[in-house]
Every structure is written in structure tokens, then in C-alpha cells.
């Protein structure tokens, strides 16, 4: 057969480029993937906190090559009339032009919009990870608006997973300065804070933002009836369908999204995805906690 005849004269790289599906199928048949991982293992995560000092908090997260940089900058706003006790969390995702060879700068990306939706759902609507009341400074007068900007610097699959972890890490290390509103309506460092500090003591530490729940995501795919966990970009192009599952620290299902695709999944399969997400959660939560402890400890 034509394909078999040429494989002998082609290098592995060339074969992979011309016949990507056959190339991948050979590995899956043996129970592993081209990068050596078993089908059920996601990539190792690395978290770097405080990567950007111009932001009030920041986190650089990598799953293999997939890289997302999240940063939060705080500004003051006047609360809206119908929610005088609430601040705002404004989420934006930008796919940096360097993240993938197919990106052209200036063209807004659909992928970024989808990620913003997923993050809004995970952090605000469904999980209610952030309670907007916590961002209030003076009801009706002043509140914090937290601008959470996430940059995808390298797009190699599982973007929902990487961006959510980066967002959570940045939120978990965010500190709200102690401020108060003067009669003139200006926001200044809190005089209470100044009074409370004894002469030989350090000034009062800004308060940490309390996360009400910690949601994390896992993207899985279906390839020739096998469940593949933690997809790379190449795998995302080859799987028949993919599912993103978000669970939180209490094992609750925050959300699951299966956006069409060439294959359908039954309930049992979707449950498998939830189980896989819970396993991955334990893994990631450990890494995140370790990073935060180390970061807090270093002052």
C-alpha cells in the first residue's frame, strides 16, 4: 500500500507531519503518547508566583509547554448604585501573538473569548470563588476593581486548565492594601493602619483576599474510544471530542463543557472525566499550596 511504501524512506518527523493521525494511533495502540506519558496522566505543572512586580499579584504557570501569565492590578472605583457593597473582578484573556505559529497580531481571537467565559463562570458565577463584597472599601463610596489579565504566552493545549490555575494562583496571593476614604472622597492609606502600627513594629500587613472556593480544570479528549487526559495542542487537533471539567476543593462539580466534536460521550464517560479531574485536583492543589507557602514565607 502506498503509505507503507513511503514510511521506510521518511524520517519519523516527516511521517508525523504528513500522516499525523497514523503516527499518533501507533503510540496510543501501545498505551502511551508520543511524549511518553500514559493515557491517564496530565503534564507536570510549575507555578512561579510574583513573576511581575508591577502587578499587585502575579503567577506564571506552565503545563509542559503551555504557558500562561496572570497578573492582577487594583484600582479604585465607585460602587454601582444597585450593588453598593461590591467591588469588581474584571477578567481578560489575551492570546499573545507568540503563543502559536498561526496567530496574527491585531486579530481578536475566538479562543480568548471562550477562555474568558469559562473563567468568569468558574471564578464568579458558578464557584463564586471571589466574593465581590470582599472588595468593598466603603459602602457606596469606594471599592476595589481587580483587573485580572491573563496572557497565554505559549499555546500547547489545555489552555482552560492553565489559565484557570494561573488566575487562582494570582488571586490567592493578592493582598488588598488598607485604605480609607477621606471626607473629600479621596482614598488614602488607612489612618487606622497607621495608628495600629507601634513605633518599633512594621506597618500593618495588607489583607489577603480570601478565596471562597478554589476551582481547577482538567481537559480530556476521546481518541478511538480511549480517554486521553491533559491534551497537548497536537492531541487536541487529533481527538474526536474534548471535555473540560472544573471541580473545586470540596469535590463539587463546578462545570463541565463538551463543545460538540466528532464523537458523542455517554454519561459513564463524562463521569470518568470528573474522576480524572478530581485526581488531577489533588495533584495541582498540592503544588499550588507549596508555591504559596514558599512565596508567603519569603516575604
Amino acid at each position, binding site marked *: 500500500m502506498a503509505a507503507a511504501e513511503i514510511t521506510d524512506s521518511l524520517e519519523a518527523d516527516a511521517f508525523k507531519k504528513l500522516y499525523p493521525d497514523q503516527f499518533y494511533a501507533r503510540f496510543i495502540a501501545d498505551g502511551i503518547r508520543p511524549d511518553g506519558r500514559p493515557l491517564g496522566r496530565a503534564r507536570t505543572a510549575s507555578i512561579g508566583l510574583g*513573576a*511581575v*512586580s*508591577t*502587578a499587585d499579584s*502575579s503567577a506564571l504557570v506552565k503545563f509542559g*509547554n503551555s*504557558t500562561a*501569565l496572570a*497578573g*492582577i*492590578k487594583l*484600582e479604585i472605583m465607585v460602587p454601582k448604585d444597585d450593588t453598593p457593597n461590591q467591588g469588581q473582578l474584571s477578567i*481578560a484573556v*489575551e492570546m*499573545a*501573538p*507568540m*503563543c*502559536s*505559529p498561526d496567530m*496574527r*497580531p*491585531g486579530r481578536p481571537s475566538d479562543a480568548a473569548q471562550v477562555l474568558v467565559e469559562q473563567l468568569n463562570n468558574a471564578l464568579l458565577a458558578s464557584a463564586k470563588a471571589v466574593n465581590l463584597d470582599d472588595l468593598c472599601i466603603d459602602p457606596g463610596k469606594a471599592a476595589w476593581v481587580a*483587573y485580572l*489579565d491573563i*496572557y497565554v*504566552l*505559549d*499555546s*500547547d493545549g489545555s489552555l482552560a486548565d492553565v489559565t484557570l490555575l494561573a488566575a487562582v494562583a494570582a488571586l490567592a496571593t493578592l493582598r488588598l492594601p488598607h485604605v480609607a476614604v477621606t471626607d473629600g472622597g479621596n482614598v488614602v492609606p488607612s489612618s487606622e493602619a497607621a495608628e495600629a502600627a507601634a513605633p518599633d513594629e512594621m506597618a500593618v500587613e495588607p489583607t489577603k483576599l480570601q478565596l471562597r472556593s478554589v476551582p481547577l480544570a482538567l481537559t480530556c479528549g476521546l481518541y478511538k474510544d480511549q480517554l486521553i487526559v491533559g491534551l497537548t*495542542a497536537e492531541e487536541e487537533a487529533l481527538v474526536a471530542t474534548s471535555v473540560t471539567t472544573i471541580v473545586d476543593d470540596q469535590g463539587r462539580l463546578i462545570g463541565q463543557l463538551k463543545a460538540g466534536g466528532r464523537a458523542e460521550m455517554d454519561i459513564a464517560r463524562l463521569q470518568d472525566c470528573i474522576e480524572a479531574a478530581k485526581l488531577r485536583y489533588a495533584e495541582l492543589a498540592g503544588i499550588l499550596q507549596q508555591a504559596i507557602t514558599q512565596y508567603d514565607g519569603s516575604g
Partner: protein
Amino acid sequence: MEFVSPEGLRLDGRRPKELRKLRIKLGSLDGTDGSAFVQLGNTKVLAAVFGPRGAPTGARSSAISCVIAVSAISVQGDRRSKERLGRQATEFSRALTNAMEQLVPADILKNACIDVHVQVLQADGGLFAACANAALLALANAGVPLRDICAACHTGLLESTALVDLSAQESMQQAPQAAILYECRTQSIAIMQTDNKMSTTALEELLELATEGCIALVTAMRQALISSTVQQLSTSAPHASAAQRRD
């Protein structure tokens, strides 16, 4: 506030002719053809190169394009400062694109295009110098043929003292400033940008200082490129000798 103390020290303790600490990391973005992370003091930029590769559909004015993007999280102030920096970035992107067209051989540019993307991650002055340096390092890292390694440097005249590599605080004063992209082999200036009015003597002084700064930066950049390649070679040497044994 005095920017240069009587002892000749700047706000961050540097001497007038002292560059900030430079850190270069090459090839960290796997999906790109070449990449370079450059940190100069507290300014951090990341550059990536795709190419040479086939021309995309749609008209392009030049085969090489360089775009600098300023992240919202990178600026000290609020989102308005980001808008301003963004506009400056667009202007500088164009100048940098023109400079690069001269540095890459024409036959490479003829039927393939090269995209250079620079993302500013943290901004503390000397922004466009850092972007230019990162862009050139990324091109070299990608194996794009270049006529020379150039470096860029930013200088300013504060309190009658010429300072090299200004921090954000130093550049916010309405003092004469000059930034150049310098080609060491031909000893020529590829790009020059000045801010605020100044006398010709002041300009000469700033350009001379900037040239010195660029020469120092080029030395560091060349060293980073060479040591990265030497490291790659030493990790691949066992394969080479194994191949020789087979023959």
C-alpha cells in the same frame, strides 16, 4: 528629589555610566523558531520569532514584521499609562521593522516572511531598548541570518549628568533623552529616537554614552548566544561521537 547625589550615585545606587543587571534566557518558548527573554533591571520583555516561513494569504507591506505589545500588567500606573505606552510601542515597532529589513539578507526575505513578536511583561524604563535587544537575540536564536548583532540603549541628561539605561522614574522627568540601535561592526546608528529639546552638545554627549552602552550590551548578548550554543553542542556531542563510531 535629586537624581544624582553629590557622590555621583543615582536613586538606585548606580553610577551614571552603569547599566542595570542584565539577564538573558534563550529558546524558552518551544513552539517558536526562536525566542529570547531579556531582563534589564526591573524591565522584562519576551521576544519570539516565527520564520522564515511561507507567505501568508493577504497583502503584507514587508517580509519581516516586528510588533511590540505592552501587557496591561506591566506598567506601574493605571490602565491609562498602558494606552500611552501602547501607542509608543506601535511607533517603535515600525522603526524596528525597518532596521531589521536591513539586517536580514534580501534573498531570505524574498519569498518567505519572518514575524517577530515582543511582549512587554514588566516596564521600568529602557523599554524599547530591551525590546530591540530581545528581538535581535530571538532572531539569532531562530537561526535567521543576520549581518550583525546590534544592541539598543537608552540615555538621558539629568542634573547636567549624562546617565545610561534610565529607569522609569528617571525617564519621567522632562529631561533630554536619546535612545539608539547601534551596529557595532560598521559603527553606525540604525535607529535614533530623542525626547525633549536639547542642545547639539547635549545630543553628542548622549549619543557617545549610548554608543558605549550598546557596545557593552553587544558583548553580553554575544556571550549569551555563544554559551547557549556551546551548551547545546555539549549535550549533543555524545550522539555525534556515536555516529562516528558507527561509520
